[in-house]
Protein backbone atom coordinates (compact mmCIF):
# COMPACT_ATOMS: atom_id res chain seq x y z
CA UNK A 1 0.00 0.00 0.00
CA UNK A 2 0.95 3.61 -0.48
CA UNK A 3 0.78 6.35 2.11
CA UNK A 4 -1.69 9.21 1.85
CA UNK A 5 -0.33 12.50 0.57
CA UNK A 6 -2.77 14.44 2.72
CA UNK A 7 -5.04 14.07 5.73
CA UNK A 8 -8.60 13.08 4.95
CA UNK A 9 -11.42 15.34 6.16
CA UNK A 10 -14.30 13.10 5.03
CA UNK A 11 -13.84 9.39 4.25
CA UNK A 12 -16.49 9.75 1.59
CA UNK A 13 -15.59 6.80 -0.63
CA UNK A 14 -13.88 4.00 1.30
CA UNK A 15 -12.29 1.23 -0.71
CA UNK A 16 -14.63 -1.52 -1.82
CA UNK A 17 -13.78 -4.40 -4.06
CA UNK A 18 -15.29 -3.78 -7.52
CA UNK A 19 -16.65 -6.53 -9.79
CA UNK A 20 -14.12 -5.43 -12.43
CA UNK A 21 -11.37 -6.83 -10.18
CA UNK A 22 -12.76 -10.35 -10.53
CA UNK A 23 -13.31 -10.37 -14.27
CA UNK A 24 -11.13 -12.50 -16.50
CA UNK A 25 -11.04 -9.80 -19.22
CA UNK A 26 -10.78 -6.05 -18.59
CA UNK A 27 -14.13 -4.27 -18.33
CA UNK A 28 -14.71 -1.40 -20.76
CA UNK A 29 -15.99 1.96 -19.46
CA UNK A 30 -17.14 4.88 -21.61
CA UNK A 31 -15.50 7.53 -19.40
CA UNK A 32 -12.91 7.07 -16.68
CA UNK A 33 -12.08 10.12 -14.61
CA UNK A 34 -8.75 10.04 -12.82
CA UNK A 35 -8.87 12.14 -9.65
CA UNK A 36 -11.79 12.81 -7.34
CA UNK A 37 -11.25 16.48 -6.54
CA UNK A 38 -13.87 19.11 -7.32
CA UNK A 39 -13.18 19.03 -11.07
CA UNK A 40 -13.29 15.25 -11.35
CA UNK A 41 -16.46 15.00 -9.26
CA UNK A 42 -18.17 17.80 -11.19
CA UNK A 43 -17.30 16.10 -14.49
CA UNK A 44 -18.65 12.76 -13.22
CA UNK A 45 -21.82 14.36 -11.90
CA UNK A 46 -22.52 16.27 -15.10
CA UNK A 47 -21.94 13.14 -17.22
CA UNK A 48 -23.96 10.90 -14.92
CA UNK A 49 -26.93 13.24 -14.92
CA UNK A 50 -26.90 13.06 -18.73
CA UNK A 51 -26.95 9.26 -18.48
CA UNK A 52 -23.30 8.75 -19.45
CA UNK A 53 -21.61 6.11 -17.26
CA UNK A 54 -18.76 7.81 -15.43
CA UNK A 55 -16.18 6.03 -13.29
CA UNK A 56 -14.06 8.09 -10.90
CA UNK A 57 -10.77 6.63 -9.68
CA UNK A 58 -9.17 8.32 -6.68
CA UNK A 59 -6.03 7.17 -4.92
CA UNK A 60 -7.36 8.33 -1.53
CA UNK A 61 -10.57 7.21 0.12
CA UNK A 62 -12.04 10.63 0.68
CA UNK A 63 -11.79 14.38 0.66
CA UNK A 64 -8.60 16.09 1.76
CA UNK A 65 -8.33 18.58 4.62
CA UNK A 66 -7.58 22.25 4.21
CA UNK A 67 -9.50 25.29 3.09
CA UNK A 68 -7.50 25.61 -0.18
CA UNK A 69 -9.76 26.99 -2.95
CA UNK A 70 -12.12 28.98 -0.77
CA UNK A 71 -13.67 31.55 -3.11
CA UNK A 72 -16.48 30.05 -5.15
CA UNK A 73 -17.49 32.29 -8.03
CA UNK A 74 -20.97 33.05 -9.23
CA UNK A 75 -20.39 31.05 -12.40
CA UNK A 76 -19.34 27.99 -10.38
CA UNK A 77 -22.52 28.33 -8.30
CA UNK A 78 -24.57 28.56 -11.50
CA UNK A 79 -22.92 25.46 -12.95
CA UNK A 80 -23.47 23.59 -9.67
CA UNK A 81 -27.08 24.75 -9.72
CA UNK A 82 -27.55 23.28 -13.19
CA UNK A 83 -26.38 20.00 -11.64
CA UNK A 84 -28.72 20.37 -8.67
CA UNK A 85 -26.42 21.52 -5.86
CA UNK A 86 -26.04 25.29 -6.19
CA UNK A 87 -28.26 26.07 -3.21
CA UNK A 88 -26.29 23.74 -0.93
CA UNK A 89 -23.07 25.59 -1.75
CA UNK A 90 -24.58 29.05 -1.50
CA UNK A 91 -26.36 28.25 1.80
CA UNK A 92 -23.25 26.85 3.47
CA UNK A 93 -20.92 29.51 2.10
CA UNK A 94 -20.27 32.98 3.43
CA UNK A 95 -21.42 35.73 1.07
CA UNK A 96 -19.12 38.72 0.80
CA UNK A 97 -19.25 41.78 -1.41
CA UNK A 98 -16.90 44.30 0.08
CA UNK A 99 -13.16 44.22 -0.45
CA UNK A 100 -10.74 46.57 1.29
CA UNK A 101 -7.18 47.22 0.25
CA UNK A 102 -4.62 48.50 2.74
CA UNK A 103 -1.12 49.82 2.19
CA UNK A 104 0.84 49.63 5.41
CA UNK A 105 -1.52 51.04 8.05
CA UNK A 106 -3.77 52.97 5.66
CA UNK A 107 -6.81 51.89 3.70
CA UNK A 108 -6.15 52.92 0.10
CA UNK A 109 -9.51 51.97 -1.33
CA UNK A 110 -12.39 49.55 -1.26
CA UNK A 111 -14.49 47.82 -3.89
CA UNK A 112 -18.00 46.43 -3.81
CA UNK A 113 -18.89 43.36 -5.86
CA UNK A 114 -22.57 43.85 -5.20
CA UNK A 115 -24.10 42.34 -8.28
CA UNK A 116 -26.94 43.87 -10.24
CA UNK A 117 -30.41 42.63 -9.37
CA UNK A 118 -32.03 39.59 -10.86
CA UNK A 119 -29.28 37.02 -10.32
CA UNK A 120 -29.85 33.92 -8.25
CA UNK A 121 -26.28 33.85 -6.94
CA UNK A 122 -23.92 36.44 -5.46
CA UNK A 123 -20.54 37.29 -7.01
CA UNK A 124 -18.73 35.05 -4.54
CA UNK A 125 -19.19 32.85 -1.54
CA UNK A 126 -16.37 31.63 0.66
CA UNK A 127 -16.41 27.95 1.50
CA UNK A 128 -13.63 25.61 2.58
CA UNK A 129 -12.81 23.26 -0.28
CA UNK A 130 -13.67 20.06 1.64
CA UNK A 131 -17.25 21.32 2.01
CA UNK A 132 -17.40 22.06 -1.71
CA UNK A 133 -16.22 18.55 -2.51
CA UNK A 134 -18.61 17.06 0.05
CA UNK A 135 -21.57 18.82 -1.57
CA UNK A 136 -20.57 17.37 -4.95
CA UNK A 137 -20.15 13.85 -3.56
CA UNK A 138 -23.48 14.08 -1.69
CA UNK A 139 -25.13 15.18 -4.94
CA UNK A 140 -23.51 12.24 -6.74
CA UNK A 141 -24.86 9.87 -4.06
CA UNK A 142 -28.35 11.30 -4.52
CA UNK A 143 -28.07 11.04 -8.30
CA UNK A 144 -26.84 7.45 -8.01
CA UNK A 145 -29.92 6.63 -5.94
CA UNK A 146 -32.02 7.95 -8.80
CA UNK A 147 -30.16 5.78 -11.27
CA UNK A 148 -27.38 8.03 -12.54
CA UNK A 149 -24.60 5.69 -13.74
CA UNK A 150 -21.76 7.18 -11.66
CA UNK A 151 -19.27 5.11 -9.71
CA UNK A 152 -16.54 6.32 -7.36
CA UNK A 153 -13.72 3.94 -6.49
CA UNK A 154 -11.59 5.05 -3.57
CA UNK A 155 -8.04 3.79 -3.11
CA UNK A 156 -7.78 2.99 -6.79
CA UNK A 157 -4.52 4.37 -8.06
CA UNK A 158 -3.74 4.49 -11.78
CA UNK A 159 -0.29 2.97 -12.21
CA UNK A 160 -0.02 3.11 -15.97
CA UNK A 161 -1.95 4.09 -19.07
CA UNK A 162 -1.69 2.80 -22.59
CA UNK A 163 -3.35 5.11 -25.08
CA UNK A 164 -4.59 3.58 -28.31
CA UNK A 165 -6.49 5.15 -31.21
CA UNK A 166 -9.87 4.01 -29.91
CA UNK A 167 -9.37 3.89 -26.17
CA UNK A 168 -7.10 3.66 -23.18
CA UNK A 169 -5.95 0.74 -21.02
CA UNK A 170 -5.58 1.59 -17.37
CA UNK A 171 -3.58 -0.45 -14.91
CA UNK A 172 -4.90 0.19 -11.45
CA UNK A 173 -3.44 -0.60 -8.04
CA UNK A 174 -5.71 -1.28 -5.06
CA UNK A 175 -5.33 -2.61 -1.50
CA UNK A 176 -6.37 -6.00 -3.01
CA UNK A 177 -3.76 -5.85 -5.75
CA UNK A 178 -3.75 -4.69 -9.35
CA UNK A 179 -6.37 -4.94 -12.07
CA UNK A 180 -6.90 -3.55 -15.52
CA UNK A 181 -9.79 -1.76 -17.20
CA UNK A 182 -10.36 -0.14 -20.58
CA UNK A 183 -11.89 3.25 -21.28
CA UNK A 184 -13.25 4.90 -24.38
CA UNK A 185 -12.19 8.23 -22.89
CA UNK A 186 -10.05 9.24 -19.93
CA UNK A 187 -10.32 12.61 -18.20
CA UNK A 188 -7.24 13.52 -16.17
CA UNK A 189 -8.43 15.58 -13.20
CA UNK A 190 -5.50 14.54 -11.08
CA UNK A 191 -4.12 17.91 -10.10
CA UNK A 192 -1.07 20.07 -10.70
CA UNK A 193 1.35 17.15 -10.49
CA UNK A 194 -0.94 15.02 -12.67
CA UNK A 195 0.42 11.46 -12.81
CA UNK A 196 -1.62 10.96 -16.01
CA UNK A 197 0.11 13.90 -17.68
CA UNK A 198 3.48 12.66 -16.46
CA UNK A 199 2.79 9.09 -17.60
CA UNK A 200 2.07 10.39 -21.10
CA UNK A 201 5.21 12.54 -21.04
CA UNK A 202 3.30 15.71 -21.89
CA UNK A 203 4.49 19.28 -21.63
CA UNK A 204 3.46 21.69 -18.89
CA UNK A 205 5.35 24.91 -19.26
CA UNK A 206 5.08 28.36 -17.81
CA UNK A 207 6.47 30.79 -15.34
CA UNK A 208 7.55 29.94 -11.80
CA UNK A 209 6.96 32.65 -9.23
CA UNK A 210 9.64 32.68 -6.60
CA UNK A 211 7.58 33.35 -3.53
CA UNK A 212 5.88 31.29 -0.86
CA UNK A 213 2.63 31.86 0.93
CA UNK A 214 1.70 30.56 4.32
CA UNK A 215 -1.98 29.81 4.87
CA UNK A 216 -3.38 29.76 8.38
CA UNK A 217 -6.99 28.83 9.06
CA UNK A 218 -7.90 30.11 12.51
CA UNK A 219 -11.12 29.71 14.45
CA UNK A 220 -12.06 32.72 16.55
CA UNK A 221 -14.91 34.93 17.57
CA UNK A 222 -13.47 38.03 15.95
CA UNK A 223 -15.01 41.34 15.21
CA UNK A 224 -13.76 41.49 11.62
CA UNK A 225 -16.56 42.13 9.16
CA UNK A 226 -17.37 39.68 6.37
CA UNK A 227 -15.09 41.35 3.85
CA UNK A 228 -11.97 40.60 1.86
CA UNK A 229 -9.07 42.51 3.40
CA UNK A 230 -5.80 42.72 1.56
CA UNK A 231 -2.63 44.39 2.86
CA UNK A 232 0.37 45.50 0.85
CA UNK A 233 3.35 45.82 3.23
CA UNK A 234 1.14 45.32 6.32
CA UNK A 235 2.05 47.16 9.54
CA UNK A 236 2.22 43.80 11.31
CA UNK A 237 5.37 42.24 9.93
CA UNK A 238 3.97 38.76 9.39
CA UNK A 239 4.36 38.91 5.63
CA UNK A 240 5.14 41.15 2.66
CA UNK A 241 1.43 40.99 1.89
CA UNK A 242 -1.51 39.47 3.69
CA UNK A 243 -5.07 38.45 2.88
CA UNK A 244 -7.90 37.90 5.33
CA UNK A 245 -11.11 36.11 4.41
CA UNK A 246 -14.10 34.89 6.40
CA UNK A 247 -15.15 31.27 6.06
CA UNK A 248 -18.05 29.33 7.60
CA UNK A 249 -17.81 27.89 11.14
CA UNK A 250 -16.11 31.03 12.57
CA UNK A 251 -12.98 30.15 10.66
CA UNK A 252 -10.84 32.87 9.11
CA UNK A 253 -8.40 32.28 6.35
CA UNK A 254 -5.15 34.25 6.44
CA UNK A 255 -2.53 34.14 3.67
CA UNK A 256 0.92 35.59 4.38
CA UNK A 257 3.50 36.19 1.68
CA UNK A 258 6.68 34.91 3.33
CA UNK A 259 9.34 34.95 0.59
CA UNK A 260 11.06 32.31 -1.51
CA UNK A 261 13.97 30.99 0.50
CA UNK A 262 12.11 29.65 3.51
CA UNK A 263 12.52 26.51 5.52
CA UNK A 264 9.07 25.00 5.04
CA UNK A 265 9.30 22.66 7.99
CA UNK A 266 10.41 25.44 10.30
CA UNK A 267 7.77 27.89 9.02
CA UNK A 268 5.01 25.32 9.57
CA UNK A 269 5.92 24.73 13.22
CA UNK A 270 2.85 25.67 15.22
CA UNK A 271 4.70 28.23 17.40
CA UNK A 272 6.06 29.90 14.30
CA UNK A 273 2.67 30.07 12.59
CA UNK A 274 1.06 31.35 15.77
CA UNK A 275 3.72 34.06 16.06
CA UNK A 276 2.76 35.43 12.64
CA UNK A 277 -0.97 35.20 13.33
CA UNK A 278 -0.68 36.82 16.77
CA UNK A 279 1.38 39.67 15.40
CA UNK A 280 -1.42 40.35 12.95
CA UNK A 281 -4.39 39.91 15.29
CA UNK A 282 -2.81 41.46 18.35
CA UNK A 283 -1.65 39.80 21.56
CA UNK A 284 -5.06 39.55 23.23
CA UNK A 285 -7.03 37.75 20.54
CA UNK A 286 -7.69 34.11 21.31
CA UNK A 287 -7.92 31.71 18.43
CA UNK A 288 -7.52 28.08 17.53
CA UNK A 289 -5.19 27.13 14.69
CA UNK A 290 -7.25 24.81 12.48
CA UNK A 291 -4.94 24.13 9.55
CA UNK A 292 -1.87 25.59 7.96
CA UNK A 293 0.06 25.01 4.81
CA UNK A 294 2.67 26.62 2.57
CA UNK A 295 2.12 27.00 -1.13
CA UNK A 296 4.17 28.21 -4.04
CA UNK A 297 2.80 28.52 -7.51
CA UNK A 298 3.40 28.65 -11.21
CA UNK A 299 1.38 30.15 -14.02
CA UNK A 300 1.37 27.58 -16.80
CA UNK A 301 -0.76 25.42 -19.01
CA UNK A 302 -0.51 22.44 -21.32
CA UNK A 303 -0.35 23.35 -24.99
CA UNK A 304 -3.41 21.20 -25.70
CA UNK A 305 -5.98 19.82 -23.27
CA UNK A 306 -6.90 16.94 -25.58
CA UNK A 307 -4.42 14.24 -26.43
CA UNK A 308 -6.33 11.67 -28.48
CA UNK A 309 -8.52 9.75 -26.08
CA UNK A 310 -7.20 11.56 -23.02
CA UNK A 311 -8.53 14.93 -21.91
CA UNK A 312 -7.17 17.12 -19.13
CA UNK A 313 -9.25 19.34 -16.87
CA UNK A 314 -8.51 21.57 -13.89
CA UNK A 315 -5.04 21.93 -12.36
CA UNK A 316 -3.66 19.04 -14.42
CA UNK A 317 -4.15 21.21 -17.52
CA UNK A 318 -3.49 24.67 -16.15
CA UNK A 319 -2.25 26.36 -13.02
CA UNK A 320 -2.50 29.98 -11.98
CA UNK A 321 -1.50 32.01 -8.97
CA UNK A 322 -4.26 32.08 -6.35
CA UNK A 323 -4.95 35.82 -6.66
CA UNK A 324 -8.31 36.11 -8.34
CA UNK A 325 -9.86 32.74 -7.45
CA UNK A 326 -9.19 31.45 -10.92
CA UNK A 327 -8.00 27.93 -10.10
CA UNK A 328 -10.86 25.70 -9.01
CA UNK A 329 -13.43 28.03 -10.59
CA UNK A 330 -11.82 27.61 -14.00
CA UNK A 331 -11.62 23.86 -13.45
CA UNK A 332 -15.38 23.74 -12.91
CA UNK A 333 -15.79 25.65 -16.18
CA UNK A 334 -13.65 22.94 -17.81
CA UNK A 335 -16.06 20.28 -16.54
CA UNK A 336 -19.01 22.37 -17.71
CA UNK A 337 -17.50 22.65 -21.19
CA UNK A 338 -16.44 19.03 -21.49
CA UNK A 339 -19.38 16.98 -20.21
CA UNK A 340 -21.94 17.82 -22.89
CA UNK A 341 -19.39 17.30 -25.64
CA UNK A 342 -18.38 13.86 -24.34
CA UNK A 343 -22.06 13.00 -24.03
CA UNK A 344 -22.80 13.85 -27.68
CA UNK A 345 -19.68 12.09 -28.97
CA UNK A 346 -20.41 8.94 -26.95
CA UNK A 347 -23.98 8.86 -28.29
CA UNK A 348 -22.65 9.26 -31.85
CA UNK A 349 -24.56 12.50 -32.22
CA UNK A 350 -21.41 14.54 -32.77
CA UNK A 351 -18.04 13.80 -34.35
CA UNK A 352 -14.98 13.18 -32.18
CA UNK A 353 -13.59 16.49 -33.41
CA UNK A 354 -16.06 18.27 -31.13
CA UNK A 355 -13.66 17.43 -28.31
CA UNK A 356 -10.93 19.51 -29.98
CA UNK A 357 -13.18 22.49 -29.33
CA UNK A 358 -12.98 21.63 -25.62
CA UNK A 359 -9.25 22.22 -25.80
CA UNK A 360 -9.65 25.32 -27.97
CA UNK A 361 -12.19 26.98 -25.71
CA UNK A 362 -10.64 26.07 -22.40
CA UNK A 363 -7.12 26.96 -23.53
CA UNK A 364 -8.59 30.38 -24.24
CA UNK A 365 -10.04 30.43 -20.71
CA UNK A 366 -6.73 29.30 -19.23
CA UNK A 367 -4.80 32.00 -21.11
CA UNK A 368 -7.15 34.64 -19.75
CA UNK A 369 -6.66 33.30 -16.23
CA UNK A 370 -2.90 33.01 -16.56
CA UNK A 371 -2.69 36.58 -17.90
CA UNK A 372 -4.83 38.04 -15.12
CA UNK A 373 -3.25 36.13 -12.29
CA UNK A 374 0.28 36.82 -13.60
CA UNK A 375 -0.41 40.55 -13.64
CA UNK A 376 -1.84 40.41 -10.12
CA UNK A 377 1.18 38.48 -8.93
CA UNK A 378 3.57 40.97 -10.51
CA UNK A 379 1.77 43.76 -8.66
CA UNK A 380 1.58 41.96 -5.32
CA UNK A 381 5.14 40.63 -5.38
CA UNK A 382 7.21 43.14 -7.41
CA UNK A 383 10.30 41.43 -8.73
CA UNK A 384 12.46 44.42 -9.63
CA UNK A 385 13.31 47.68 -7.94
CA UNK A 386 11.43 49.70 -10.55
CA UNK A 387 8.30 47.52 -10.41
CA UNK A 388 8.24 48.08 -6.67
CA UNK A 389 8.67 51.85 -7.14
CA UNK A 390 5.69 51.98 -9.52
CA UNK A 391 3.64 49.64 -7.33
CA UNK A 392 4.17 51.87 -4.31
CA UNK A 393 3.47 54.98 -6.41
CA UNK A 394 0.12 53.50 -7.45
CA UNK A 395 -0.73 52.67 -3.83
CA UNK A 396 0.29 56.10 -2.56
CA UNK A 397 -1.72 57.89 -5.24
CA UNK A 398 -4.74 55.62 -4.63
CA UNK A 399 -5.03 56.83 -1.11
CA UNK A 400 -5.62 60.39 -2.39
CA UNK A 401 -6.97 60.10 -5.93
CA UNK A 402 -9.57 57.88 -7.53
CA UNK A 403 -7.78 57.74 -10.88
CA UNK A 404 -5.05 55.43 -9.56
CA UNK A 405 -7.38 52.91 -7.92
CA UNK A 406 -8.10 50.87 -11.06
CA UNK A 407 -4.35 50.25 -11.28
CA UNK A 408 -4.26 48.58 -7.84
CA UNK A 409 -4.22 44.84 -8.46
CA UNK A 410 -4.71 42.53 -5.50
CA UNK A 411 -6.28 39.95 -7.82
CA UNK A 412 -8.76 40.36 -10.66
CA UNK A 413 -11.58 38.13 -9.53
CA UNK A 414 -12.68 35.23 -11.66
CA UNK A 415 -15.27 35.86 -14.34
CA UNK A 416 -16.27 33.20 -16.86
CA UNK A 417 -14.54 33.13 -20.23
CA UNK A 418 -16.45 34.42 -23.26
CA UNK A 419 -15.57 32.05 -26.09
CA UNK A 420 -14.99 34.79 -28.65
CA UNK A 421 -13.75 33.31 -31.91
CA UNK A 422 -14.60 29.71 -30.99
CA UNK A 423 -14.94 27.36 -33.97
CA UNK A 424 -18.33 26.37 -32.51
CA UNK A 425 -19.75 29.89 -32.68
CA UNK A 426 -22.62 30.51 -35.07
CA UNK A 427 -23.71 33.85 -36.44
CA UNK A 428 -23.90 36.84 -34.09
CA UNK A 429 -26.64 38.34 -36.20
CA UNK A 430 -28.70 40.39 -33.78
CA UNK A 431 -28.17 44.06 -34.63
CA UNK A 432 -28.37 46.12 -31.44
CA UNK A 433 -28.04 43.03 -29.23
CA UNK A 434 -26.23 43.55 -25.90
CA UNK A 435 -22.49 42.91 -25.89
CA UNK A 436 -22.70 40.92 -22.65
CA UNK A 437 -24.77 38.18 -24.29
CA UNK A 438 -22.83 38.09 -27.56
CA UNK A 439 -22.11 34.72 -29.14
CA UNK A 440 -19.71 32.79 -26.92
CA UNK A 441 -20.91 34.39 -23.65
CA UNK A 442 -22.33 32.50 -20.72
CA UNK A 443 -26.00 33.47 -20.44
CA UNK A 444 -26.58 36.20 -17.88
CA UNK A 445 -29.19 35.24 -15.30
CA UNK A 446 -32.48 37.13 -14.87
CA UNK A 447 -35.47 36.87 -12.57
CA UNK A 448 -38.61 35.69 -14.34
CA UNK A 449 -42.12 35.13 -13.05
CA UNK A 450 -41.61 31.38 -12.73
CA UNK A 451 -38.02 31.31 -11.55
CA UNK A 452 -34.52 32.27 -12.58
CA UNK A 453 -33.65 32.19 -16.25
CA UNK A 454 -30.62 29.92 -15.84
CA UNK A 455 -32.71 27.41 -13.91
CA UNK A 456 -35.26 27.35 -16.72
CA UNK A 457 -32.57 26.81 -19.35
CA UNK A 458 -31.67 23.42 -17.96
CA UNK A 459 -28.86 21.48 -19.59
CA UNK A 460 -29.95 20.71 -23.12
CA UNK A 461 -29.97 22.88 -26.24
CA UNK A 462 -32.42 25.74 -25.90
CA UNK A 463 -33.91 28.23 -28.28
CA UNK A 464 -34.62 31.45 -26.37
CA UNK A 465 -37.22 33.61 -28.02
CA UNK A 466 -38.12 37.16 -27.07
CA UNK A 467 -40.92 38.99 -28.87
CA UNK A 468 -41.02 36.51 -31.72
CA UNK A 469 -42.29 33.02 -32.48
CA UNK A 470 -40.60 29.64 -32.98
CA UNK A 471 -41.63 25.98 -32.75
CA UNK A 472 -41.74 24.53 -29.20
CA UNK A 473 -39.24 21.90 -30.17
CA UNK A 474 -37.13 21.23 -33.21
CA UNK A 475 -34.89 18.23 -33.73
CA UNK A 476 -31.64 18.64 -35.61
CA UNK A 477 -29.67 15.49 -36.47
CA UNK A 478 -31.33 13.66 -33.57
CA UNK A 479 -30.69 16.44 -31.06
CA UNK A 480 -33.74 18.13 -29.55
CA UNK A 481 -33.77 21.90 -29.19
CA UNK A 482 -36.42 23.08 -26.76
CA UNK A 483 -37.87 26.54 -26.96
CA UNK A 484 -38.03 28.86 -23.95
CA UNK A 485 -40.02 32.01 -24.47
CA UNK A 486 -39.03 35.04 -22.40
CA UNK A 487 -41.29 37.97 -21.66
CA UNK A 488 -39.79 41.31 -22.68
CA UNK A 489 -39.27 42.44 -19.08
CA UNK A 490 -36.73 44.97 -17.96
CA UNK A 491 -33.85 42.60 -17.17
CA UNK A 492 -34.50 40.52 -20.29
CA UNK A 493 -34.48 43.63 -22.46
CA UNK A 494 -31.29 44.88 -20.87
CA UNK A 495 -29.46 41.53 -20.95
CA UNK A 496 -30.77 39.91 -24.16
CA UNK A 497 -32.59 42.39 -26.38
CA UNK A 498 -30.67 45.66 -26.23
CA UNK A 499 -31.90 47.85 -29.04
CA UNK A 500 -33.35 44.94 -30.99
CA UNK A 501 -37.14 44.47 -31.23
CA UNK A 502 -37.04 40.70 -31.02
CA UNK A 503 -34.43 38.01 -30.54
CA UNK A 504 -33.80 34.29 -30.99
CA UNK A 505 -30.84 32.79 -29.12
CA UNK A 506 -29.47 29.29 -29.59
CA UNK A 507 -28.05 28.21 -26.21
CA UNK A 508 -25.63 25.33 -25.68
CA UNK A 509 -26.00 22.76 -22.88
CA UNK A 510 -23.33 24.65 -20.88
CA UNK A 511 -25.53 27.75 -21.15
CA UNK A 512 -23.19 29.61 -23.47
CA UNK A 513 -24.68 31.48 -26.44
CA UNK A 514 -24.12 29.59 -29.72
CA UNK A 515 -25.82 32.02 -32.12
CA UNK A 516 -28.42 34.79 -32.15
CA UNK A 517 -30.75 36.40 -34.66
CA UNK A 518 -33.73 38.78 -34.65
CA UNK A 519 -36.11 36.07 -35.88
CA UNK A 520 -36.49 32.31 -36.14
CA UNK A 521 -35.27 30.73 -39.32
CA UNK A 522 -35.30 26.93 -39.29
CA UNK A 523 -32.39 26.49 -41.69
CA UNK A 524 -30.26 29.07 -39.88
CA UNK A 525 -30.85 27.37 -36.52
CA UNK A 526 -30.12 23.99 -38.05
CA UNK A 527 -26.84 25.22 -39.56
CA UNK A 528 -25.81 26.90 -36.29
CA UNK A 529 -26.57 23.83 -34.24
CA UNK A 530 -24.57 21.63 -36.60
CA UNK A 531 -21.68 24.04 -36.26
CA UNK A 532 -21.96 24.02 -32.45
CA UNK A 533 -21.64 20.24 -32.36
CA UNK A 534 -18.57 20.27 -34.57
CA UNK A 535 -20.22 19.16 -37.82
CA UNK A 536 -19.38 22.23 -39.87
Amino acid at each position, binding site marked *: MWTDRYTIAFHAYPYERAVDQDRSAPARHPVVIVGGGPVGMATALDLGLKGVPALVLDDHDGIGMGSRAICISKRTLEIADRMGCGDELADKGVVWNLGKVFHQDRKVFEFNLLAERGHKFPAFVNLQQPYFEKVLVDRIRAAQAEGAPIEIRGRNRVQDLTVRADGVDLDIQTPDGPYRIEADWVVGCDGANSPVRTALGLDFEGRVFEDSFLIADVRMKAGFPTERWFWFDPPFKSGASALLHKQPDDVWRIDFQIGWNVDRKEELREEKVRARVSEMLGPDVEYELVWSSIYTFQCRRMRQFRHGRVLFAGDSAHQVSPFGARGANSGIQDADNLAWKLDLVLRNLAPEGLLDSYSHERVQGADENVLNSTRATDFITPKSEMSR*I*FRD*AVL*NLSEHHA*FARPLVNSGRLSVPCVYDGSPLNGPDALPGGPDRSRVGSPCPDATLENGYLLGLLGDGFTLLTIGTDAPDEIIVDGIPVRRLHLPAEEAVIERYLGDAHSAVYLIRPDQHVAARWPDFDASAVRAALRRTIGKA
Partner: protein
Amino acid sequence: MSALTLSPNIVGPDEFYAELLAAHDGLSKAESDALNARLILVLANQIGDRETLSQAIATARDAVPKS
Protein backbone atom coordinates in the same frame (compact mmCIF):
# COMPACT_ATOMS: atom_id res chain seq x y z
CA MET B 1 -6.72 57.89 -33.94
CA SER B 2 -4.65 60.30 -31.95
CA ALA B 3 -0.96 60.76 -32.47
CA LEU B 4 1.67 61.57 -29.87
CA THR B 5 2.70 65.20 -30.01
CA LEU B 6 6.43 65.33 -30.71
CA SER B 7 6.70 68.96 -31.72
CA PRO B 8 7.31 71.56 -28.95
CA ASN B 9 4.09 71.91 -26.96
CA ILE B 10 5.09 73.18 -23.51
CA VAL B 11 4.43 76.84 -22.87
CA GLY B 12 7.43 78.29 -21.05
CA PRO B 13 9.82 75.35 -21.36
CA ASP B 14 12.50 76.81 -19.11
CA GLU B 15 10.06 77.50 -16.31
CA PHE B 16 8.61 74.01 -16.59
CA TYR B 17 12.05 72.41 -16.49
CA ALA B 18 13.08 74.45 -13.48
CA GLU B 19 9.87 73.50 -11.70
CA LEU B 20 10.41 69.82 -12.46
CA LEU B 21 13.92 69.93 -11.00
CA ALA B 22 12.81 72.00 -8.04
CA ALA B 23 10.28 69.35 -7.14
CA HIS B 24 13.20 67.00 -6.54
CA ASP B 25 15.15 69.42 -4.36
CA GLY B 26 16.24 67.87 -1.11
CA LEU B 27 14.88 64.42 -1.97
CA SER B 28 16.87 61.24 -1.61
CA LYS B 29 17.30 59.03 -4.67
CA ALA B 30 14.48 56.77 -3.44
CA GLU B 31 12.17 59.71 -2.82
CA SER B 32 12.98 61.13 -6.26
CA ASP B 33 12.30 57.78 -7.93
CA ALA B 34 8.97 57.65 -6.14
CA LEU B 35 8.12 61.20 -7.19
CA ASN B 36 8.95 60.43 -10.81
CA ALA B 37 6.78 57.32 -10.74
CA ARG B 38 3.85 59.23 -9.27
CA LEU B 39 4.31 61.99 -11.83
CA ILE B 40 4.33 59.51 -14.73
CA LEU B 41 1.10 57.97 -13.46
CA VAL B 42 -0.58 61.37 -13.03
CA LEU B 43 0.42 62.43 -16.54
CA ALA B 44 -0.55 59.07 -18.04
CA ASN B 45 -4.01 59.40 -16.57
CA GLN B 46 -4.28 62.87 -18.08
CA ILE B 47 -3.48 61.46 -21.52
CA GLY B 48 -5.73 58.46 -21.02
CA ASP B 49 -5.75 57.38 -24.66
CA ARG B 50 -4.09 53.96 -24.82
CA GLU B 51 -2.66 54.37 -28.30
CA THR B 52 -1.01 57.68 -27.36
CA LEU B 53 0.38 56.12 -24.19
CA SER B 54 1.84 53.22 -26.17
CA GLN B 55 3.49 55.67 -28.56
CA ALA B 56 4.87 57.63 -25.61
CA ILE B 57 6.35 54.50 -24.02
CA ALA B 58 7.90 53.43 -27.33
CA THR B 59 9.27 56.94 -27.95
CA ALA B 60 10.89 57.06 -24.52
CA ARG B 61 12.34 53.57 -24.94
CA ASP B 62 13.79 54.31 -28.35
CA ALA B 63 15.34 57.66 -27.53
CA VAL B 64 18.62 56.27 -26.26
CA PRO B 65 21.96 57.95 -27.08
CA LYS B 66 23.06 57.32 -30.68
CA SER B 67 26.19 55.19 -30.75
